[in-house]
């Protein structure tokens, strides 16, 4: 009988991505945007009013990736002047680095000064995370699951999701945080031993995305703690998450 299994495996071949830091995604993938410097006031106002989540602001003109849903509508309105590159390495621990200004074309990095002392050396070799979906739409959750699958296999770096908060070194929050999940989220966080990380995965978690202003949300949890990593995307690509966490663990600048 195992012959059949071997046959299937033979056909299946090797599926893992050997180097997760060198992958190039399809050209249409929408990652870090680049904004031209020659945008007129009229064009600015056009895309500012078009943006469904107020991620584009004036003075100075910029796109906030923490709010952006990567819907690409501003690009289609100004195809020559706003472009989303396929650079998926957009996770950082510095919220202000997610704001991209006109003419800016530099990779998004970790800010080493913002890494808390108590976690700096603690999680270099292994990191166990507890995920909490707080009204996430299930797309980010599926991408986080995919980060551990046969293709991306982040387990090779010692990064794993665990069932119990007692076994975890940190919490990964997805979704805009509903009122109805506020208490369970707090209970779960409290159950994780110190020192512990907080990672926000997906635009919904970072800024509540399209749900901004909904009366069904309660984001007060986020006011209380330091956020250790922001992973933008709608949903974030597994590679965005893995590279972000790796850079944080290794204190890569």
């Amino acid at each position: 009988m195992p012959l059949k299994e071997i046959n299937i495996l033979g056909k299946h071949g090797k599926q893992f991505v050997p180097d997760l830091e060198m992958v190039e995604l399809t050209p249409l993938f929408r990652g870090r945007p680049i904004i031209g410097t020659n945008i007129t006031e009229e064009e600015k106002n056009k895309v500012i009013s078009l943006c469904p989540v107020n991620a584009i602001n004036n003075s100075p003109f910029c796109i906030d990736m923490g709010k952006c849903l990567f819907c690409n509508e501003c690009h289609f309105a100004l195809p020559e002047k706003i472009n989303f590159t396929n650079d998926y390495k957009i996770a950082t621990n510095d919220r202000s680095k997610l704001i991209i200004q006109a003419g800016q074309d530099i990779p998004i990095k970790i800010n080493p000064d913002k890494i808390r002392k108590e976690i700096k050396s603690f999680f270099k070799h292994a990191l166990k995370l507890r995920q909490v979906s707080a009204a996430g739409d299930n797309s980010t959750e599926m991408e986080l699951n995919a980060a551990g699958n046969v293709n991306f296999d982040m387990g090779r770096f010692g990064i794993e999701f665990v069932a119990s908060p007692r076994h975890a070194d940190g919490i990964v929050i997805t979704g805009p945080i509903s009122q109805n999940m506020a208490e369970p989220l707090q209970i779960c966080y409290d159950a994780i031993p110190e020192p512990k990380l907080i990672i926000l995965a997906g635009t919904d978690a970072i800024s509540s995305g399209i749900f901004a202003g909904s009366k069904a949300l309660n984001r007060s949890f986020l006011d209380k703690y330091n956020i250790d990593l922001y992973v933008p995307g709608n949903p974030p690509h597994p590679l965005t998450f893995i590279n972000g966490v790796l850079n944080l663990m290794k204190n890569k600048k």
Partner: protein
Amino acid sequence: MTKIYYEITSNPSSIKLTDIPVLSYSEFQKTVDELMSVESNHCLNYFAFPLSDKYKFVCCIGDDETKKIIILSHEQPKTKDISLESITAKHFQFHVFEREIYENYGIYFSNHPWLKPIRYPFNRSNLENKISNYPFYSIDSEELHEVGVGPIHAGIIEPGYFRFICNGENVLHLEIHLGFQHRGIEQLFLEKQSVLQQTILAESIAGDTTIAHSIAYSLLAESLANKTISEELSIERTIALELERIAIHIGDTAALCTDVAYQLGQVINEALRTIIINTNQFWCGNRFGKGLIRTCGSHYPLTKEIIEIIKNNLNEVEQRYLQITDRIFTLPSVLARFETIGKVTKKQASMIGAVGIGARSSGLKRDTRWSHPFLQYDKINYEPIVLPKGDVWSRAMLRKMEVLKSVAIIKELLNKYDNEKIIDNPNYDLKFEPYFIAISMVEGWRGEICHTAITDNKGKIIHYKIKDPSLHNWMALALAVRGQEISDFPVCNKSYNLSYCGNDL
């Protein structure tokens, strides 16, 4: 004889709100009773909304055989302590709709056997009801024990609370308590009136059903604005919808293998799902199809290159999926955990108004693509796959068969597709008909999705109602585990893979 209901025969449809006859409640009850005695009828939607000094109740009943949707209504003055006789007592599938109306507006249904909260929305009528204090059913017995799971589960999934009453290892009763995912999405449809914002809201109803829900919204908005779409755009949307179905069905095949500890089945199917969602990413830049479906047009028309990629990837996936599923469905250790487990009979499925996978795996021929065809489905002679047994095996097998069918549908449509034709750019400047009601239905991978919108005298949406198939089918999961060992819960759960946020909205 005066007309007692309005019949529509096309999907999507928009009609004047005043065209729907208003019945007295007793007439309404009697008519519903008559309609529900026909086996092929089921309730698509039943909701209430405030309209000046009244509550207007709209009920849509779909006929699987005649392609009709019957719409009927009644109105009640906005007084305190409205109490109506429950329809649920006779026709159980109304339970969730009456519960929703009670929760939202405090309109009481007498003789309702299970008048419990369904999602604890922020704008519920009674804010004293707290989500931490859900009224669980319990049995007072020294022989029994209760098992509570949730709202946060062991894996990376959405939150929901399951409470089992068990006799030893056997489940007597499961109660599913949801609402943790409530984001107020229906209210946001009223607050964000731009068509682009509403499209993005529709994409976010349930991230695993991005394409189906955004198609439902687009069809509804286009119908409400009197716009027709080109044949090519319709083909593209159908292809996207079937790709979504293939991706999730393969992913769920993987999940089912995980839960019966067949690791090879799991990893191979995970890798196959990756190929499909990467096809989506190649087409529109997003693995879930966010950004692909837009009103009246598309930013991502199919090109020769994309068509080639879709064809090649489908061939590859079809071949390898056949190979691994042949193994899965002949392996005794897998079959022992699939066969006769989690049975829901045809009668039960019919009573609870099950849709989609939950209906077709229990012998009910219910599929919007066949009963109320939209986009390309009336042109391809689509015939649903129905399996009679209602167990986990049937739901797993149905997924396999539907994957193969979806591959065939996409290939047929690609052959028809003329990529020389130019696809329009999206149009967000839509003017909706005033004082209208619009309905659109889409068969997502889980089953029947129904969106309904009502406009005021200026064409502004004043009520938006979303129905995800999960709303009906959560009850099927509760029934499936009755009499099973509690260890069979995970595999029963995965066989349905229902949406939490689709229910909680």
